[in-house]
């Protein structure tokens, strides 16, 4: 991105001043080098978001930002319903509530290493993944409606997991305001056999170990030590979420015209939060979030079953579960005044600072655990939310490494087989459903996750707690 016309706020924060139709400025969080490599489209898309009605403070882009649909991926926008604020399709996307769940195994790297091949092979068989895979849970319309109302709580009630798991999920596993009546029959039918499936693309299941601790106190609160083995699950709301997106793309296109909302990009179709269309979409999005939470809960249960086969004594405990494609109703302080806002995070993780009532008591002093999925070959990170983050970004941080290369180019650059060999040479076992998928997700196709995370840390949006390295991966 060209630095011309950008106002430097700090080494890690840049502003596109309010101009033309923009209601607020754009703030981009990036180191000098990340900014240099960042797509011009990020500035353009974030500026388009700044033109939407009712947006508060600034349209934000995280350090992993790249070109998205309407919003940049890594984009955050908060809207006030009382100021004509909108709920916007582009700020949520097609994979509603896609997110990361991490679980602790109580095992250490040396315990797992000798049996890692067996473990990943077992999980590969236990957790359905890849295009066309079907889950073990079979539901009808009524069953799906219960999923949409009950989220992860539904899953626990069905025997997938423990009550205790729910405390470590945002909103304790179920969001309010979901109305299954506003989700189409098609969307529900597509989900009949998709609950508990991982999907494909950038979705994965990883066995990781802690290789670096930055904050001993917070790591202790998380129950992690050096070499502790954890499991990470990255997936979302599956076909149901995709269909909600598809259905409402058209409905909101009509609504944007009806309410004369001046959108700069068709992908920013939206409706006023307080309009019938906006309320309807919101209730469908909440249903989509519950679907994703239920999905990750069922997968967590399958992971426990798989682990038990290889490590019969292992107790798999929840660490935390975050979503990074959402719109959530949250209280934030603006100019000293408490306001209720609809915060859109598209490829951005909620990162609430210490003390927020939303956090489980174990984490209330450290701040919200922010789970950052890196790439197969490098690292993932756990950070903790901060007070500064609450002030600057409505308590939001990055969500991953962020793509640096298109899928098409990645496929031209790497062969799936060779990527797997190279990873295996580095001690990382990968079980994949598609070679093309592996090439598209090759580690080199992403930005340097360490630099992204350092930028979040240095900008004060969240602070580094631990770094983890992959030992074995299931790719969808």
């Amino acid at each position, binding site marked *: 991105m060209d630095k011309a016309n950008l106002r430097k706020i700090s080494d890690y924060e840049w502003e596109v001043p309010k101009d033309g139709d923009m209601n607020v400025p754009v703030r981009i969080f990036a180191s000098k080098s990340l900014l240099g490599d960042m797509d011009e489209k990020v500035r353009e898309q974030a500026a388009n978001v700044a033109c939407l009605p009712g947006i508060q403070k600034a349209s934000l882009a995280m350090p992993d930002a*790249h070109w998205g649909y309407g919003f940049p991926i890594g984009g955050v926008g908060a809207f006030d319903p009382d100021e004509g604020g909108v709920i916007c399709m582009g700020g949520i996307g097609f994979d509603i509530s896609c997110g990361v769940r991490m679980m602790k195994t109580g095992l250490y790297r040396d315990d797992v290493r000798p049996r890692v091949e067996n473990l990943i092979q077992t999980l590969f068989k236990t957790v359905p993944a890849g295009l*066309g895979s079907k889950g073990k849970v079979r539901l009808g319309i009524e069953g799906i409606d219960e999923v949409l109302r009950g989220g992860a709580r539904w899953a626990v009630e069905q025997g997938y997991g423990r009550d205790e798991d729910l405390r470590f999920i945002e909103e304790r596993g179920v969001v309010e305001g979901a109305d299954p009546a506003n989700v189409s029959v098609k969307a529900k039918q597509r989900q009949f056999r998709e609950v508990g499936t991982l999907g494909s693309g950038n979705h994965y299941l990883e066995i990781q170990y802690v290789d670096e601790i930055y904050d001993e106190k917070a790591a202790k609160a998380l129950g992690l030590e050096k070499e502790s083995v954890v499991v990470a699950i990255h997936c979302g709301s599956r076909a149901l979420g995709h269909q909600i997106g598809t259905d409402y793309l058209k409905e909101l296109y009509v609504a944007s015209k009806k309410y004369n909302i001046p959108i700069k990009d068709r992908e920013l179709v939206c409706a006023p939060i307080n309009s019938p269309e906006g309320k309807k979409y919101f209730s469908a999005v909440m249903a989509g979030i519950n679907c994703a939470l239920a999905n990750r809960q069922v997968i967590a249960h399958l992971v426990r079953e798989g682990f038990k086969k290889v490590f019969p004594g292992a107790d798999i405990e929840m660490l935390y579960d975050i979503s990074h494609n959402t719109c959530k109703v949250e209280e934030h302080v603006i100019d000293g005044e408490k306001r209720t806002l609809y915060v859109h995070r598209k490829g951005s993780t909620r990162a609430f600072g210490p003390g927020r009532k939303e956090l489980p008591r174990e984490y209330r002093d450290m701040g919200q655990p922010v789970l950052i999925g890196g790439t197969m070959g490098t690292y993932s990170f756990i950070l903790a939310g901060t007070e500064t983050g609450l002030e600057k970004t409505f308590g939001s941080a990055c969500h991953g490494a962020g793509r640096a290369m298109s899928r*098409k180019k990645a496929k031209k650059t790497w062969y799936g087989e060779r990527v797997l060999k190279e990873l295996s040479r580095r001690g990382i076992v990968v079980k994949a459903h598609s070679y*093309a998928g592996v090439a598209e997700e090759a580690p080199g196709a992403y930005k340097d996750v360490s630099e992204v995370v350092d930028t979040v840390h240095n900008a004060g949006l969240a602070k580094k707690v631990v770094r983890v390295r992959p030992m074995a991966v299931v790719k969808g």
Partner: protein
Amino acid sequence: MGEGYETFEHEADMGIRGSGETLEEAFENGARAMFSIMLDLVGVEPEEKVEISCSAPDRETLFVEWLNELLTQASLREMVFSDFKIESLEKDSLRGYAYGERLDKKKHRLKVEVKAATYSMLKVYKNEKYVAQCVVDV
């Protein structure tokens, strides 16, 4: 890529483009481009015919609607499609067919799932040929 259809680069996802002598052909080839991201089209037998009909406010959004309806039907029927035929195409609605067979993980060379067709870089136009394109979310 096959004749009349191709994919193009988008930083995070993938663009699809269909072209042809008629608008119908461009839409059909657009569908081929999208399914070529999901699997090798060679190797899919056009055993079953599925009727597709959809509507949208205008011609460009109709292209996205057509693609999304194909994804929906493929997912609902657990099928893969490799051939497409549009019977009637109005300004705001269309009717046509998709041909394919039941998805078989052993038989078909599957690649990655397409979540949805989007309004990103959506264009339907005519130069020498008719062209229909958009970005799909992978």
